[in-house]
């Protein structure tokens, strides 16, 4: 197990209108819990069953937050999802929270 925490600066409050839950902690998949925050940044906490991939997580999140500017708290429970699946789930959570 590994727990990772990341912070990103968020330009906008209110991008996320409501909280959103997508995905399942099943093999090769992950669960995303996204909640709107009233702060100036976005927080991400990841718990993953596959340790040693913090650089890859950083890269996937960097890419997501290049476009996404909402002040949100994101919790990820990961069961070995590939970066592609992670990116899709993040996008899905962002959409579901609009």
């Amino acid at each position, binding site marked *: *197990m590994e727990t990772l925490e990341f912070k990103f600066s968020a330009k906008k409050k209110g991008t996320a209108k409501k909280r959103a839950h997508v995905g*399942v902690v*099943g093999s090769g998949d992950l*669960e995303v819990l996204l*909640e709107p925050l009233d702060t100036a940044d976005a927080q991400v906490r990841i718990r993953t069953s596959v340790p040693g991939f913090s650089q890859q997580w950083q890269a996937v999140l960097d890419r997501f937050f290049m476009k996404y500017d909402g002040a949100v708290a994101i919790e990820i*429970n990961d*069961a070995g999802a590939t970066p592609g699946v992670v990116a899709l789930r993040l996008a899905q959570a962002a959409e579901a929270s609009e």
Partner: protein
Amino acid sequence: MTTSTEPLSSVHMPKRRDSFIELNGRERALVFCDLDSWRELLGPFDRLESPWLLPQNVTPQADDGCIVIKGKIDGVSTVVVSMEPAFQGGSLGEVSGAKICAALDLACRDNENGIQTNAVLLLETGGVRLTEANLGLAAVAEIISSLLSLRQLAPIVCLTAGTVGCFGGMSLVAALSSYMVMTVEGRLGLNGPEVIEQEHGVEEFDSKDRALIWAIDGGEQRYATGLADALVQDDVGEIRQAVRGLLKAGVPSVYRSAQVDLYRKRIAALDTAQQFNPEDLRKTWHRENTK
């Protein structure tokens, strides 16, 4: 002139099946409730997850793989419990067990207070979660106790649609419920095929032989031998219809679990010197001979 209100484009379209099996646990629970009548109890944002998984290097899920929806089906208050098939094989842990138990107890209390409340259990589960074995076993006992109280007051419909099936301790829950609904893809059995093979060898039961497994544990066989009350296609509409029909039928007059003599006689009458095949068993234990 046609009086149909269907849009023209859909009239000549071949009817496609709307798969239930492809839905996740939460989506499955929601297909049953009347529109906008439901709310989720102890959902993922309540973060009631299992405390036993992290120390064993397993990622927990925020709802512990158990979704509880309180809503209305055909206007009648109903609690729908769904085990998430993709999380740990739909297994039952301390938290998911307590959620199911509490849901059944609350339904029981509502009924006692004059509010008719039925239950639907979507059992896609390999049984007790091995990483929380003792607590899972205790949870099965508690669920059964709650279920036996509730089933006197309101119908409890169980559904096993597949593809996980319903095994282990949770198969006891299914067997004690008011009604059992299965699809052809669904399976129901106490010991799963891999467990039998592991304990008694491949000659006893080949867990790779899918045709053999489904001929014994599969929905078609379970229905034909009277161990399930309805056999449905993997179709949301058909499954919803079957569950609603059984809820309307109310509390059954005879439970399978009360027919001890019948099932004892069935077993006693079997000549175990010869190898039975599933087709023979279907004739000997035909569902028409159940009552």
